[in-house]
């Protein structure tokens, strides 16, 4: 009887575990696993055929074209992460420490909405704002300033990246800043720190892990995004994500896209690993 009860308890436990394992095992691990396998397959007569060759890897990795896109993507995403983290900080500081709890909740509530709200349409709206005959240039000409070409520039790509990630970064930074022990900040002020000095000597070091995690999320999102570089940055020269879209959508060269995709996952894993070392390694 005791073993019967134990068996029933085991069934109970496994039943709750099973849905995730089955679903993500079949469709998430399955898809990523097949992506890896596929990168060694061959395409003959527009059809994929099972094989185990390094041809796709050699073809892609030997091309200067690929490496241009590789470094450009890394550079754009790093620059975006840096700029967005810096721009987000004053807002996060204010939401985390200056605003009343009520205003704090409202600000976070407002920032969460756009994060889950059609990035695609918001990027399109930026086209309307930044276009040569767009809203911003209309306002500039009204002020007597000659029109500036803003669309299809790296700066426009950054605007897109900020549209995608700024709300999330502000929220994550604000949460980590507001969870700092207030007495430590009071102590900094009592010791005669100005606000800037308190920020650089107390708040940034104390909120460090949260700030790094926010930056990692920004990097992951910017690095993989194809909407900003495509529709705002002008798509040429392409980033890695645009390369994937173009290669996969124009015919059956999925194995070569898979090579690009796996390289990207490798970069993201390396960046996350370094960041986690920064968060947990030197703390103690």
């Amino acid at each position, binding site marked *: 009887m005791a073993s019967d009860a134990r068996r029933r308890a085991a069934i109970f436990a496994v039943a709750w575990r099973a849905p*995730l*394992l089955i679903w993500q*095992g079949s469709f998430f691990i399955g898809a990523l696993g097949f992506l890896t396998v596929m990168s060694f397959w061959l395409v003959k007569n527009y059809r994929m055929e099972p094989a185990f060759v390094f041809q796709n890897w050699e073809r892609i990795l030997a091309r200067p074209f690929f490496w241009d896109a590789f470094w450009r993507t890394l550079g754009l995403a790093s620059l975006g992460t840096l700029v967005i983290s810096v721009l987000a900080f004053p807002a996060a500081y204010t*939401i985390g420490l200056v605003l009343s709890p009520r205003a704090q909740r409202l600000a976070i509530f407002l920032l969460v909405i756009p994060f889950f709200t059609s990035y695609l*349409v918001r990027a399109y709206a930026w086209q*309307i704002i930044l276009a040569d005959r767009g809203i911003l240039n209309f306002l500039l000409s009204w002020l007597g300033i000659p029109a500036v070409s803003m669309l299809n520039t790296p700066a426009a790509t950054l605007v897109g990246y900020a549209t995608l990630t700024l709300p999330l970064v502000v929220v994550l930074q604000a949460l980590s800043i507001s969870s700092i022990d207030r007495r430590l900040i009071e102590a900094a002020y009592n010791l005669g720190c100005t606000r800037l000095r308190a920020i650089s000597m107390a708040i940034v070091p104390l909120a460090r892990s949260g700030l790094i995690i926010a930056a990692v999320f920004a990097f992951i999102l910017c690095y993989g995004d194809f909407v900003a570089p495509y529709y705002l940055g002008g798509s040429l020269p392409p980033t890695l994500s645009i390369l994937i879209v173009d290669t996969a959508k124009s015919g059956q060269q999925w194995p070569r896209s898979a090579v690009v995709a796996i390289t990207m996952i490798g970069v993201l894993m390396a960046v996350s690993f370094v960041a986690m070392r920064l968060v947990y390694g030197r703390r103690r």
Partner: protein
Amino acid sequence: MTGPRLDTLWLKAYVGLALAFVFAPIAVALVFSFNSSRFPTLPLQSFTLEWYEDVASNPELISAFGRSALVALLVAALSTAIGFATAYTDYRFSFRGKGFFVALALLPPTIPSVIMGLAMLAWLSRLAISGTIAAIVVAHTVICIPFATAIIRLRLSEMDAGLELAAWNLGASPWTAVRTLVLPFARRSLLAAMALTAAVSFDEYAVAWFVSGLQKTVPVVVLEILTGNVDPRINAIGAIVFVTSMSLVIAAQILIGRSSQKSGTAE
């Protein structure tokens, strides 16, 4: 400690500026959806509902909206059910390999959607369901499970762990305890998870673009319009999408806020 007044004022203005940056594109799409000019330039012309009428009388767009709604409903139900099972497992049990289990539960959003789209396209073609509504549902559920799991897990952590044990001691089977105790306790978070995952699915364009084939959802139609010529209907479509997903996200946030406040007063 708040420092000089003037400083504080500037800081608050900065937050306002950040919010303006975030909401500017939403406002622009809304305003231009009512503008009679075919081209999105200032100054604005007259007010019109023409583009909305165009959308409402276009069979292709109507079926896209219907498809998106159907997908969002199925994804919300599936990912919330799986998310509850996963959150409950994390809350209730400890077992070997739990770290792997939790990682599997939370990992999918860290994979860029273009890569997810490519992997899903190849894998679901292999399984012979690519290009069907089922393919979109499968892929979106993979993406949405982590959000549902996180929301429900947060709520479960507010539950007194002794409650379930007490029910077991009083002779309730563990299944009964989940049905009569845990599920009612988590009810608001389940609704919140459904609203949020429906919003994520309704908005998702990249993976859907790869796997949907001819079964286009609304964001896929938007993506294709963007790649083509100027089409003034896009603002009207965008406005409808904004209102839908914003309502869902707001509903989810209110449900989450309410449920944590409620437990706050109960303690």
